[in-house]
C-alpha cells in the first residue's frame, strides 16, 4: 500500500504524509516538509533591539504572542534590561491569552471535524450552530483579551523590550475579566461534548520535554526538563538537545536523550500537571487523562485541559493587575550587551530565541528553536508505529488516520521553516 497525502489539510503550513506498507510491514512512514524558508534568523541581523520583536512575531501568525514574548525576553537578557513586576504579570497573562486562542482553534476547528466524521467545521454552521458559536466565542474572547492587552493578537503592537508602549485600559480589562468568567460555562459544555468523542487508540512511549518553574505551571521562562531525566537552565539549551537535517524536510529535526522527543501540551501536562489549576485537574480526571500519558492523540485533551487552566489563571492575573492598578511605566534602559536566551512554552511547545547584540544594541546573531521542529522526529517515529498498527485497514482509513496523527501534533509548519 502506497500512501501519499500532499499538503495535509487543517494544519498550518505545507507538509505531506508518505507511507509505504508491504505485507503488514511498514517500509517507510514520514512527514515531508515542503514549506519555503523565509530566513528570519539571517535577516533579523543588524536590526535595532527596538525592531527585533516586531519582526520576530511575524515568524508565526498563530503563535505570534509566543514569538514576541520569547523575543523580548531574549533581548532583555542580552541587554540587561530589568522588567517590572507589572510587566512580569502582563507577560504571563499574554501567554494565557495565547494558549486559549490557539488551543481553541485547534481543538474546535481543526481536530473536532475528524472525530465527528466531517471534513471541516463548515457543515456544523447549519447543523449545530450552538457549538460553532461556542467555539468562536472561546477563540474570539482570547483574541479580544490580546487586543486589550497589546493591541492585537496577530501581530502584537504594544510590546517592546522592557515593557509596553502603553498599558491596557482598566475598564476594558475588567470587562475582559467578566467575559473570561463567562467562558467557564463553555468549558463545562465542552467537557460533556468531549466525553462523547472517541480518539484513535494508539500508544508509544517517548521522551517529553517542557519548561518547569518551582512555583507555578509555566508558559513563560523556567528551566528545561525531560521525562528521561535532565534539567538545564534556558541559557544552556545547547548542552541538552541539538538540531539536525534530514533529506525529506526543509525544516530541521531535533533530539536529546534518544532519537526523538515530544514538546507541547501533552509534554507540559505530563511534566507539570500537579501545578495545574484545581479546575483543570478535575477536568483532566473527568476526561480520563492519567499522567504519564503516552498517546499522541491525547495531546488534544491536554490542550483542552490547559485551556481550562489558562482561563482560570487569566482571571486570577487580571484580578491581581486590577487590584494593583495599571500604571504607565518608563521603559528601563539598556545596561550591557551580549547574549540572551528567551524561553517560553508556545501552544505547540518549547520555543527558544537566542540572540547576541553588539555594543550599538544591534542584533548580530539569532537562533530560533521552534516547537514543531522539535516534534518532527517524534512524528516520524509515531507515523511508523501507528502505520504498523493499522496496516491491515483499508487504504482510505489508513490515510485519514495518519493525517489525524499529524493534526494531533498541531504542527506549525511555516513557523518551523522560519
Amino acid at each position, binding site marked *: 500500500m502506497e500512501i501519499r497525502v500532499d499538503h495535509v489539510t487543517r494544519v498550518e503550513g505545507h507538509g505531506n504524509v508518505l507511507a509505504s506498507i508491504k505485507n503488514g510491514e511498514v517500509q517507510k512512514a514520514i512527514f515531508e516538509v515542503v514549506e*519555503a524558508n523565509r530566513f528570519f534568523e539571517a535577516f533579523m541581523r543588524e536590526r535595532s533591539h527596538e525592531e527585533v520583536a516586531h519582526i520576530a512575531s511575524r515568524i508565526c501568525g498563530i503563535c505570534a504572542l509566543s514569538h514576541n514574548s520569547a523575543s523580548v525576553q531574549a533581548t532583555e537578557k542580552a541587554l540587561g534590561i530589568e522588567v517590572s513586576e507589572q510587566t512580569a504579570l502582563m507577560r504571563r497573562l499574554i501567554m494565557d491569552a495565547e494558549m486559549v486562542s490557539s488551543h481553541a482553534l485547534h481543538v474546535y476547528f481543526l481536530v473536532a471535524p475528524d472525530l465527528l466524521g466531517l471534513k471541516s467545521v463548515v457543515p456544523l454552521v447549519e447543523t449545530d450552530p450552538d457549538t460553532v458559536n461556542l467555539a468562536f466565542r472561546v477563540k474570539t474572547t482570547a483574541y479580544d483579551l490580546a487586543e486589550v492587552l497589546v493591541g492585537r493578537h496577530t501581530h502584537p503592537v504594544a510590546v517592546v523590550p522592557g515593557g509596553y508602549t502603553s498599558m491596557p485600559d482598566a475598564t476594558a480589562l475588567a470587562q475582559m475579566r467578566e467575559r473570561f468568567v463567562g467562558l467557564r460555562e463553555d468549558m463545562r459544555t465542552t467537557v460533556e461534548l468531549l466525553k462523547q468523542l472517541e480518539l484513535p487508540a494508539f500508544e508509544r512511549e517517548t521522551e517529553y520535554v517542557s519548561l518547569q518553574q518551582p512555583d507555578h505551571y509555566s508558559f513563560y521562562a523556567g528551566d528545561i526538563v525531560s521525562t528521561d531525566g535532565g534539567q538545564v537552565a534556558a541559557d544552556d539549551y545547547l548542552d541538552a538537545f541539538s538540531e539536525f537535517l534530514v533529506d525529506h524536510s526543509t525544516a530541521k529535526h531535533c533530539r536529546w536523550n534518544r532519537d526523538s522527543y515530544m514538546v507541547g501540551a501533552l509534554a507540559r501536562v505530563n511534566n507539570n500537571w500537579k501545578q495545574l489549576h484545581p479546575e483543570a485537574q478535575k477536568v483532566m480526571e473527568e476526561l480520563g487523562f492519567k499522567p504519564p500519558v503516552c498517546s499522541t492523540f491525547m495531546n488534544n485533551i491536554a490542550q483542552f485541559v490547559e485551556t481550562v487552566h489558562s482561563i482560570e489563571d487569566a482571571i486570577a492575573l487580571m484580578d491581581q493587575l486590577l487590584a494593583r492598578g495599571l500604571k504607565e511605566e518608563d521603559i528601563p534602559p539598556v545596561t550591557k550587551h551580549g547574549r540572551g536566551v528567551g524561553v517560553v512554552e508556545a501552544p505547540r511547545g518549547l520555543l527558544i530565541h537566542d540572540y547576541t547584540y553588539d555594543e550599538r544594541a544591534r542584533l548580530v546573531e539569532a537562533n530560533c528553536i521552534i516547537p514543531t521542529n522539535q516534534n518532527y522526529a517524534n512524528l516520524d517515529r509515531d507515523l511508523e508505529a501507528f502505520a504498523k498498527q493499522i496496516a491491515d485497514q483499508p487504504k482510505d482509513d489508513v490515510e485519514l488516520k495518519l493525517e489525524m496523527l499529524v493534526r494531533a501534533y498541531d504542527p506549525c509548519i511555516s513557523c518551523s521553516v522560519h
Partner: protein
Amino acid sequence: MSNKPRVAFFDFACCEGCQLTVLSIGEPLIEVLKHVDIVTWREAMSEKSDEFDIAFIEGSITRDSDVPRLKRIREKARLVVALGSCAALGGPHVSANRFETSELLELAYGNKAEQYEAGEVRPISAEIEVDVPIYGCPINASEFVLVLKHLLLGRPYRVPNEAVCYECKLNGYECVFDKGMICLGPVTRCGCNAICTSRGHRCFGCRGLVDDPNVDAARDVLEEHDYSLDEIIGMFQIYSHRAPRVQQLAEAAAEPQKKRSKGSEPWRFGSTT
C-alpha cells in the same frame, strides 16, 4: 451546486496570520459565509475544489518552483486578491533580499545548502495579475469584509491611499515624533486605522508607501528630529527592501543627515543596492 460565488484561499511563503485574521472575525464571518461557498481552504478544511471564482492568496514568492502553482490559481480564478503585505508587497522577509541567496542557504542548512531552493522574495504581482491588494501585516479584518462585499456586489474597491497620519490625526492620537520616536506614518498607506500609534508605538510601514508620498514633508519632519541616515534607511527597509521608490524616498528624506554623518562608518542597510 449552489450559484453562490465560490471562494478559495491559498498561501505561499508567509506566517498565515492574515488567514488567521479572517478566521478570527467570528460572527461577521458566519454572516459572510451565508453569501459565498468556501470551496478550498487548506488551513481550515479538508474539502478541496479546482473550481472557484475568487482566490485569496496569502504569502510571497521565494522559489521559482512555486510559480507554476501560483499561475494555475490565476488561470482558474475570475478575481485574485492579494491577502496581506507578503502577497501584496513581499512582506517582512523581503529584507532577506539584502543577502545573497547562497549565504542565506548556507546559514540555514550548512553543508547541505545545495539541496535546498531559495530565491528573491517578491510579491505575487511580480508573477501574476492581481485584481485587488489588501495591505497590512496582518490585514485589517474589517477591510477584508469590506473588500469581499465589494467583490460580491461587483463594485470597484478603492484601496486607501492616504497616509497613516491622516487616520492617526482623525483619531486624535499623540504624534509619535513628539514622543521622540521615528515614525513612517507620514508616507505609509493607511487603512489600518493607525493601530500601532493607537497603542503608543510608531508606524513600521507594513502597508507600504502611498502612491504619491509627500517626500518634502517627510524630509522636514525627519530633519527636525535629527535622525541618522542608517536609522532612516533601516526603518524604511523592514517591509520594502530593494523597492526603488523606497530607496529613493529614504535617501531623499535622509539627505540633510547624510552631510552631517559623512565620515562615520556606514552600516549594511545603507551600503547595499
